[in-house]
């Protein structure tokens, strides 16, 4: 039964990805891409990875979808003709050969493959956390997470550079236009903040954590923005910048102070307190960075306001 379910998901994923390539309109391709994200989220659930399912549904299907749609709205031209994509025979053959080679080798995985699960399992009591994915992200491999926050920050600075913008803040707040829009914000916003906080708290012992919480909060921000309410406007320029790099710099301070106290980077006598602080800082930074990435896009509503 499970295998049938797996096969259905697999066939749908491949089918959707092919349709995305061959879709004639961009709008269609983007809608299909959002569907692709949702099917991936199904696959993650099936593969016992609820963390990634949450992240994928929120980011892959949600935020990326919003970004793509928004860009499509900006670059759409009236005379755009629908195109038919032809794959050159050479390329098609090359792709099929690649699929066969990679697919054949993927199946040659050693039968006793256990990855690092045993190593992590044995080290779990030594870390202060109860949930293994959070422990890997924030304790065992915290260096990666630090640099990941760096990548997010770099992307925001990159977007600001390309846009030649110094600030996304400080413009006047317009009232959300629609009564229904106002109403829905009133209802949903508290929910999203609560869910974000809940996911953050959950991360210590169950699927959830800083990233998922940050994405949900960013979703709340994007909703506000879509309703005509540039939510970054309440911040001053300097506090916005500080919040953007809050997560990255908390890690940086941990790294520097641990080098001083423990002579080794990212380990510290009070590491548990640090991890808690980093989780909160990272959640805020991730939310603010993602909102900024969407709001900084050209022709966005903020431009029209200011």
């Amino acid at each position, binding site marked *: 039964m499970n295998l049938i379910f797996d096969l259905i998901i697999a066939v749908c994923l491949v089918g959707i990805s092919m349709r995305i390539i061959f879709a004639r309109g961009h709008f269609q391709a983007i809608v299909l891409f959002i569907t692709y994200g949702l099917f991936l989220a199904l696959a993650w659930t099936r593969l016992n990875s609820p963390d990634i399912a949450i992240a994928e549904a929120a980011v892959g299907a949600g935020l990326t979808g919003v970004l793509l749609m928004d860009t499509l709205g900006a670059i759409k031209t009236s005379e755009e003709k629908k195109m038919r994509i032809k794959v050159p025979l050479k390329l098609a053959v090359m792709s099929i050969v690649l699929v066969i080679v990679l697919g054949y080798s993927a199946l040659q995985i050693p039968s006793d493959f256990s990855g690092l699960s045993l190593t992590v399992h044995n080290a779990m009591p030594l870390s202060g956390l109860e949930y293994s994915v959070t422990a890997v992200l924030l304790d065992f491999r915290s260096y990666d997470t630090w640099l990941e926050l760096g990548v997010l920050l770099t992307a925001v600075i990159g977007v600001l550079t390309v846009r030649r913008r110094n600030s996304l803040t400080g413009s006047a707040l317009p009232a959300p236009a629609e009564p229904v829009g106002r109403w829905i914000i009133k209802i949903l916003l508290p929910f999203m903040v609560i869910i974000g906080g809940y996911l953050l708290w959950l991360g210590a012992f169950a699927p959830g954590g800083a990233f998922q919480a940050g994405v949900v909060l960013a979703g709340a921000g994007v909703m506000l923005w879509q309703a005509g309410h540039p939510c970054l406007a309440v911040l001053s320029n300097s506090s916005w910048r500080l919040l953007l790099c809050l997560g990255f710099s908390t890690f940086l301070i941990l790294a520097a102070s641990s080098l001083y106290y423990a002579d080794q980077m*990212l380990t510290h006598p009070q590491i548990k307190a640090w991890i808690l602080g980093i989780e909160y800082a990272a959640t805020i930074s991730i939310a603010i960075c993602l909102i900024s990435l969407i709001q900084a896009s050209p022709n966005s509503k903020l431009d029209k306001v200011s």
Partner: protein
Amino acid sequence: MPELLILIPFSAAILSFVIPEKFRKWIGLTAALFILVSSLDLNKKIYTNGIQRLNLGGWDPPLGIALNIDGLSIIFTLLTATVGFMVSLYSIWYFSKGEQAEQDGYFWPLWLLLWGGLNSLYFVADIFNAYVVLELISISAAALAALNGNASSLKAALRYFLIAMAGSMTFLMGIGFIFAQTGSLDMQTVAAAEQHGPLMFSAIGLITLGLIMKTALVPFHFWLPPAHSEAPAPVSAILSALVIKGSFFLILRFWFCVFHEAQAMYYTSLLLGVSGVTAVLWGSYQALIQSRLKMIIAYSSVSQIGYLFILFPLMFMSADPYWKLEAWTACIFQTISHGLAKAALFLAAGNLIQSCGTDHIKSMRNIAGSLPMTTFTLGLAGVSLMGLPPSGGFVAKWMLLQSILTSGQWWLAIAPVLGGLLTAAYIFKILSSTFVSDQKGPQKRNISFFMEKSALILALLSILMGFRAEEISFLLQERMSFDLSGGYLP
């Protein structure tokens, strides 16, 4: 302490992002100075005490992530610190006037983030960590390439970024295959594990493919000339001297520290060798027929990258461990001398453009008269690229040629011989146009003292590094975290 080389640029990047724009350059310069000093200090430590391996977060690999600092890392760190310091010095004046002034505030945070990323890359000892660092480098490098903001530079930046992203994804898939075979992400553990069969074959292919896309080896070179020539001068210097060297560094790490699946590596190395020779010839030919100075220099990068890949077939075909070591040393020498000379060339080109307003070589008449120091810089860097003694380029090409001849792979010798001639041709094309005297030429603007000096110092270093050959060879041959001559085992 090696960690400082990661902490300083990142802290400076954050600081320069939150403070007002006019102070950013001074933060940048101070950080550059500190990085230079601490990498010289680290160099001394590695030279005398041997390699360092540091665990992060108090966890031993494969559970945690480690840093690995050996002779190879320290050479790349020093190259980055030297070029980075000179470029920072140059940038303070380059971005202070004219149309470049509005780019100043954006340049510093990105450049410092990129620098931090490069330093972390040189210390990398974990394959997934390498992926994250590569992404950090790609995004900041692409944003820097788009700094000009005009249509052509935006297009060039996006073309570069798309290729870099495709390379990253291919690399990530390769990481998955390595993890599937060995069950570990730590380079040392992966190197010690059994590596055989199709899984490893695919992993080697994917990792190498992903990285050569980012290194702009033929046939993935098409993004490089526009991206490097459209960027502002200091950014061009950073991109061609350091960023492509970053991904090349990772290829070396993987090929000489991680992989030891001999058969797959043998065939892949042949392909890399063919691409390398093609790149040398095609790049030099293209450089010869260009008419814009920065395009010539950018195509010259395509050809000089080709030399680096001649190492791989030599490693697998030459029987004598002594010549293997020679070829290895030659390759790193080529990396350093190209990095220094290319940075000098781009900075000098930036001076010429600020002076004449264009980089069309027809319009650079009488430059030798008005900007003698910049012309001298072009000449010196050209000498190093051509491989004339006593430059670093000469040492590199001489050792390369020797190990090619002893290995009996005559076809590889085409590259240094013919490539050297073509290089000489395009360097003379640049130089001869600067000596044409033409009184009617456009009004030349004055160039800041520091801008001329920093380009000159880089060019001088690329010549003078030949005199430090012994120390560099020592670092390369005695301070390795892997054993080159005894197969490719850790």
